[in-house]
């Protein structure tokens, strides 16, 4: 095969995966819109869309379907943000086991948010500032993990263990703080810790879209430098990139994406781990392709996880946190990667 054909093939494979991903995403959204405590199903959803397109008169269940749409969109955007954050974190640490949640970004973000609720609740009246507070928290968490891992020798395993140390400390703090602030936020303690889409509002969709837009754009510009960084710091610098700068910008963006999801939805683990690997299985390791595909796969996966949450919640009281589902799927995957990595 000529090289140009191989290159073309890879591009075609990429675009085909993107199209496939979008189809999967639309199906996931349709399923998600058709499920809920009321009995409106897929037909009602299609009627609502027909009305939006001006084809039909307004059906009377539009409000409920709009609520479901908000919720599903928040799930989609959250998944996309976490998928991209996963790619960034794995690339800069060159560690296939890395993930925002495992490296302590999420629990530190939640800690700073809860701390702000306690100390200066007025700051959090605006959702944008909540996102900024969580972003700072996530960045502090990531920096702590990287420092600790450096002290512990800097091996791939040291990084993961450092992440577990940092996230354990801060999940302790955030448990205490979340317990104290639950009355203030009018949200049960557990839900705050584990993430939910049940309280999603329309402004969340706007806010997450902006976050995703910024994060995605910068990640695409970073894709080439990150590709270079995969072969080592020296390699990146001989190609004319500054490895420290790439690392710094990437950790800021990963923290921004993760922090925003923690501020708006809560902690959701393992999406950032599983999604980039799924993307790489489909199209290989080129970050120019992995970043966009991870956004789409991450979105679809969380929409489906939310469907599972709603189905299971129907059999209980209240709402199951979505993190329960992502852990059940993600942790075994982590175990599999761990075995593969450690055996070489």
């Amino acid at each position, binding site marked *: *095969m*000529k*090289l*140009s054909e*191989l*290159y073309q093939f*890879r*591009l075609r494979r990429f675009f085909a995966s993107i199209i496939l991903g979008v189809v999967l995403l639309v199906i996931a959204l349709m399923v998600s819109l058709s499920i809920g405590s009321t009995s409106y199903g897929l037909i009602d959803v299609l009627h609502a869309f027909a009305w939006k397109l001006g084809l039909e008169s307004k059906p009377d269940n539009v409000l409920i379907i709009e609520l479901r749409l908000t919720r599903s969109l928040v799930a989609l955007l959250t998944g996309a943000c976490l998928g991209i954050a996963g790619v960034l974190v*794995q690339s800069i640490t*060159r*560690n*296939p086991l890395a993930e925002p949640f495992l490296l302590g970004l999420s629990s530190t973000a939640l800690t700073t948010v809860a701390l702000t609720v306690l100390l200066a609740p007025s700051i959090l009246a605006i959702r944008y500032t909540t996102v900024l507070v969580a972003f700072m928290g996530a960045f502090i968490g990531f920096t702590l993990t990287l420092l600790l891992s450096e002290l512990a020798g800097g091996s791939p395993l040291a990084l993961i263990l450092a992440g577990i140390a940092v996230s354990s400390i801060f999940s302790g703090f955030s448990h205490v703080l979340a317990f104290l602030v639950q009355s203030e936020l009018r949200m049960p303690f557990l839900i705050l810790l584990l993430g939910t889409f049940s309280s999603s509002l329309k402004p969340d969709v706007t806010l997450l879209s902006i976050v995703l837009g910024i994060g995605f754009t910068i990640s*695409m*510009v970073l*894709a*080439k430098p990150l*590709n*270079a960084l*995969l*072969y*080592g710091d*020296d*390699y990146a*610098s*001989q*190609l*004319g*990139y*500054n490895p420290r700068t790439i690392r710094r910008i990437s950790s800021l963006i990963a923290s921004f994406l993760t922090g925003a999801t923690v501020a708006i939805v809560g902690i959701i683990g393992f999406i950032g781990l599983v999604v980039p690997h799924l993307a*790489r*299985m489909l199209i*290989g*390791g*080129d970050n*120019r392709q992995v970043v966009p595909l991870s956004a789409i796969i991450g979105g679809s996966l969380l929409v489906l996880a939310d469907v599972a949450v709603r189905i299971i919640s129907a059999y209980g009281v209240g709402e199951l946190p979505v993190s329960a589902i992502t852990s059940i799927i993600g942790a075994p995957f982590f175990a599999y990667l761990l075995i593969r990595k450690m055996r070489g």
Partner: protein
Amino acid sequence: MKVKVLGVEFYYDSLKVLDNVEFEVNEGELVSIIGPNGAGKTTLLKCIARILKPRKGAVYVDGVSLWSLKPREAARIVAYAETSIVPEFQLTVLDYVLTARYPHTNPVKLWEDYRDIEIVEQALRELGIAHLANRKLGQISSGELQRVILARIIAQEPKVLLIDEPTAFLDLKYRLEVMEILRKLSKEKNLTIIVAIHDLELAARYSDKLILIHKGKIVAAGSPRTVLTPENIEKTYGVKVDVIEHFKHGLIIVPLEPL
């Protein structure tokens, strides 16, 4: 392009690794840096490649200090080839070699041009590894990986090539072939090539000039015959040797005993 290394001094923390290293390499020359393990060969190449910044001294390429250039510009002039890469994330040979084109393409342009692909293909063919393009980096032999690394540095199209141990993992045939390719590149394309190499006979046979370093200092420099004397080798490697002139090609070095 002419490379001029002037009074270079380099430290890892407080450990002095290069001490007042000074030499010149002319355009079209193939020069080998030799010396025992830990002598500072890799460090020297990295200083020239502007991966490491010397504490004192400077490296000039055609009279211009590399540190005064933009990093991307410098990457089009000098390129460094490492001894090995640690492959992660299912990356393929093509993924790796494509990165060589990054310094030549606009940073915001996402995909390579047809021309970039042609250059990469040409480089892979030159090293006889075009058939490996779609293979994972973790699933090829060390010798194949070494040729992949060489293909990458060629695809980067630099004027000055700095190559760390280009023949370490190669078999008899590819050792000769790689050195032939490097010599051809230096002579036909007028490139400046500096390699760090442990195989003294290969170095003697293919290099225009040898630079022998020991504990960060240049001990001898010049034509292979003047550098590879039994005294020099004994002094630096700590091995007693006989140096025999082959009737046709280069030198034969017979190690007798370690001192």
